[in-house]
């Protein structure tokens, strides 16, 4: 099971005590040793005081999903200690602060306790209270370094990079690392049976979170107007966009900026700003989470019906209502697909990791302008806020943005008459004009019923003509949104269907299932509306498991509605605990299903 470069450990600490930097230091050090690594921050909706965990998975095979259990825990939060001790696998280790005794009642005989007097060590070495709290985390980093066989030189190098300009901090951190390291070497058998050994598997990789990747994608796609209202877990997306714009989009001479970020009064306004800017010809976007999308409904219908582009990032969190703001879920699928009153259907792209956050964000801007409609980027907290190891992002210098059908002055002049909603090319997409151009191209945007010439109408035929064309346009988009990703095994009769951040866990589950003799095919949905190949895949398999992170099987329902395959003919595999999916829960669900069938 666990062994060299194949194990997981977690840190249980108190929010606001500075453990985040220690944890990312650990993760990055492992990454620099060339070993695949994934980190999951399980944090509270709180600024200070509530419990927080950071899980690190090391996997020579490159499995990046959340581990089902951990081999070692650094248990530094008194309030969760009893519970935390229970989460370690039998035969695992608990590292704790031995400055205080652990109550006998919560000890376990089947795990090894590694006591390190973190509190006493920190108190003996550092003067100020704040330093004692912060550097305690660095001391456990040092102890783990010795126990897990982390390359000491890599840690030192990282500290030198981080504190290049602050000698006193560098010294304090280096000292703390050494204290932990020496203590572990002296008191425990180092390294532990499971530990790290250098590999060469991370050369072409980076460690990045999805929100940063989306923000960067928006910069590369040429977005200039960003509107938002702060909400976890989407806030860091706009912060990233802003930071990248400040780096790449400020005129060196004048200091003037080629972007405009507006922090709106609420998400309704953020949607309005996005749509206003899209109408005026800029690439515009807004980033939010479920509650914000709920507020944007009316505007989304307006943009759909008046055919105005805009990119809407939904970094999903656990609902309903305020729900669990710092936990992950994929529970907005239905709302996104048919947002707003009346008949609507929206384009959605589903990135599975930060790499796709970057590429699909660029695609989303192209799709929005090509189809003149809102496009959702449906990310989630796990993708958006956790550090993922993914391939380095690349940029194709030959990329040409698809700005859609916007009439040039010459094209407009050549027309006998401009009709905004007239389908001249038969593809359902009517050419638009931008405000500021020639008066001949002027038209009136209205959310009320309009004919092909954008004139108000209550004539049923004229109304139907326009809404039917929009329907056709959106149907055609099924071929243009990102295609599903397939992994096929000849002869497989079982289909595993999933989307977004479930990807890693489901792929890992495929390997485990194969070991147990189950041959499965895999389809990861990456776009909505579904192309015909989605229906084909479902039809080809005896049993389809639809694996997703919500209570009601929203992807399964969407598949049923859109493909006509009966909902109950597909098996729902659901995890809506708010935690990233594990391979184990998928394997268990599949095996339990067949055990039930056999019985």
């Amino acid at each position, binding site marked *: 099971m666990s062994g060299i470069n194949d194990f997981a450990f977690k840190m249980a600490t108190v929010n606001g005590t500075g453990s985040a930097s220690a944890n990312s230091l650990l993760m990055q050090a492992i*990454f*620099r040793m060339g070993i695949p690594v994934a980190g999951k921050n399980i944090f509270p909706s709180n600024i200070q005081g509530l419990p927080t965990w950071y899980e690190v998975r090391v996997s020579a095979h490159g499995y990046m999903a959340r581990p089902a259990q951990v081999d070692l825990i650094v248990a530094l939060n008194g309030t969760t200690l009893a519970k935390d001790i229970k989460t370690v696998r039998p035969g695992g280790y608990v590292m704790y602060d031995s400055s205080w005794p652990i109550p006998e009642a919560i000890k376990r005989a089947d795990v090894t306790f590694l006591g390190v007097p973190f509190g006493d060590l920190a108190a003996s070495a550092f003067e100020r209270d704040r330093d004692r709290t912060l550097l305690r985390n660095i001391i456990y980093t040092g102890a783990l370094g010795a126990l897990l066989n982390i390359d000491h030189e890599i840690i030192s190098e990282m500290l030198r990079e981080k504190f290049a300009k602050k000698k006193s901090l560098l010294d304090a951190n280096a000292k703390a690392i050494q204290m932990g390291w020496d203590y572990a070497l002296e008191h425990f058998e180092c390294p532990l049976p499971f530990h790290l050994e250098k590999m060469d598997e991370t050369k072409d990789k*980076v*460690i*990045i979170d999805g929100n940063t990747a989306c923000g960067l994608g928006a*910069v*590369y796609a*040429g977005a*200039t*107007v960003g509107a938002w209202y702060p909400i976890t877990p989407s806030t860091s997306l706009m912060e990233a966009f802003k930071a*990248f714009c400040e780096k*790449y*989009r400020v*005129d060196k001479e004048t*200091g*003037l*900026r*080629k*972007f*405009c*970020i*507006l922090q*709106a*009064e*609420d998400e*309704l*306004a953020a*949607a*309005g*700003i*996005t*749509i*206003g*800017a899209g*109408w*005026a*010809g*800029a*690439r515009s976007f807004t980033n939010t989470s479920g509650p914000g999308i709920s507020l944007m409904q009316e*505007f989304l219908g*307006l943009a759909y019906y008046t055919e105005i582009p805009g990119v809407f990032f939904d970094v999903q969190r656990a609902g309903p209502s305020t729900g669990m703001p710092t936990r992950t879920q994929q529970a907005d699928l239905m709302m996104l697909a048919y947002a707003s009153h009346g008949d609507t259907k929206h384009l959605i792209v589903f990135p599975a990791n930060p790499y796709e956050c970057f590429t699909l964000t660029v695609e989303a801007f192209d799709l929005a302008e090509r189809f003149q409609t809102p496009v959702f980027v449906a990310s989630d907290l796990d993708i958006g806020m956790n550090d993922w190891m993914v391939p*380095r*992002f*690349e*940029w*194709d*210098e030959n990329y040409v*943005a698809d700005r859609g059908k916007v009439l040039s002055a010459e094209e407009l002049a050549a027309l006998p008459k401009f009709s905004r909603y007239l389908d001249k090319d038969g593809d359902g997409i009517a050419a638009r*004009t*931008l*405000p*500021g*151009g020639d*008066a001949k191209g*002027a*038209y*009136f*945007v*209205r*959310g009320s019923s309009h004919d092909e010439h954008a004139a108000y109408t209550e004539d049923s035929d004229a109304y139907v003509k326009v809404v039917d064309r929009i329907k056709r346009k959106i149907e055609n988009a099924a071929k243009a949104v990102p295609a599903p990703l397939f992994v096929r095994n000849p002869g497989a009769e079982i289909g595993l269907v999933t989307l977004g951040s479930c990807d890693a866990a489901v792929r890992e589950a495929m390997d485990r299932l194969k070991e147990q003799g189950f041959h499965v095919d895999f389809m990861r949905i990456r776009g909505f509306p579904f192309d015909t190949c989605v229906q084909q895949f479902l039809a080809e398999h005896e049993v389809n498991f639809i694996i997703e992170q919500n209570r009601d099987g929203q992807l399964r329902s969407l598949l049923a509605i859109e493909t006509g395959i009966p909902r109950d003919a597909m098996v729902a595999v659901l995890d809506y605990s708010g935690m990233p999916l594990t391979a184990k829960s998928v394997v268990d669900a599949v095996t339990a299903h067949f055990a039930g069938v056999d019985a």
Partner: protein
Amino acid sequence: MTSIQKPQFRHPGLPKNALGYTRRDYEGAMSTLCAGCGHDSVTAALIQAFWELDLPPNRAAKMSGIGCSSKTTAYFMKGSHGFNSVHGRMPSVTSGAAAANRGLTYIGISGDGDSLSIGMGQLCHAIRRNVRMLYVIENNGVYGLTKGQFSASADIGSTSKKGEANVQPPIDPALLALSLGATFVARSFSGDKSQLVPILKAGLVHDGFALIDVISPCVSFNDHEGSTKSYRFTREHEVEMTEVDFVPIRHEITTKDTDSAVTAVQMHDGTVMRFRKTHEGYDPTDREQAYLHVRECTKRGEVATGLLYIERGGADMHAVARTVERPLAELTVAELCPGKGALEKLMDSYR
């Protein structure tokens, strides 16, 4: 609601402005409002103001929400793009459009329901953001389009058509704008074109958010005895604070400069606006005093009109955001994309 077909004919002798356009060229689709609706008079005043200002229609954008008032953007300047958005949300759509293209003249038309109830938050924040735009509230004290319910601007005691008296205190958009720091605040009356047109012109060239509250009676639901937003009531209770005389600089200044009651304000485009204090002791450049005066009028049951407050527009949305002069919508993706080399370099920092 009725719509009356107007005869379409072009009088060869119609006067032309500097762009060679007649007033007709600033008209739009046929109005479908009730005959006698105040909003149609505001539309007529807007047409006059655009024509006199030589505004190129294609360089303007007409923005509105939902309501009888918001419909009127279709009834003027057919050569401009128009955006009839959703109820109460025109300010955010305009903010976005202005962010994308700062080169256009934005004309926002709203109603008292659109601006003071459902869209109150958006109005306040557009003022705070200081979006450069003309913002006209066609204020009739009722929701016209939904058939006459009281709006948030209805005065206490004002009665509905069925005789029911309003009991909730009104929101005065002028006082609201003054308290939020708006740099141009005016009030006028749809029945007083000679006052309204110069105010609209001044608002159009103001280099910041310009709010004009126009009392615009609803003949179908709020023009009866007992209403405080009727033609008659407004005519009888209107008290003009300042009279605006808008003079594009290229024209000769005709009023005697010796007149001590006349103050001249230079607008950002070089034009000069002069106003004459018609009310003893009123100073439209003193925000606190203006606020008090308007409040006093309201207490006396009077309607304070004219230019209520003005200062230079200050830092608008783009000045605050420090955006480039060129409209963002005109920048190409190729210009905006940092490119391959930058990405390669950046990726090294994520290791």
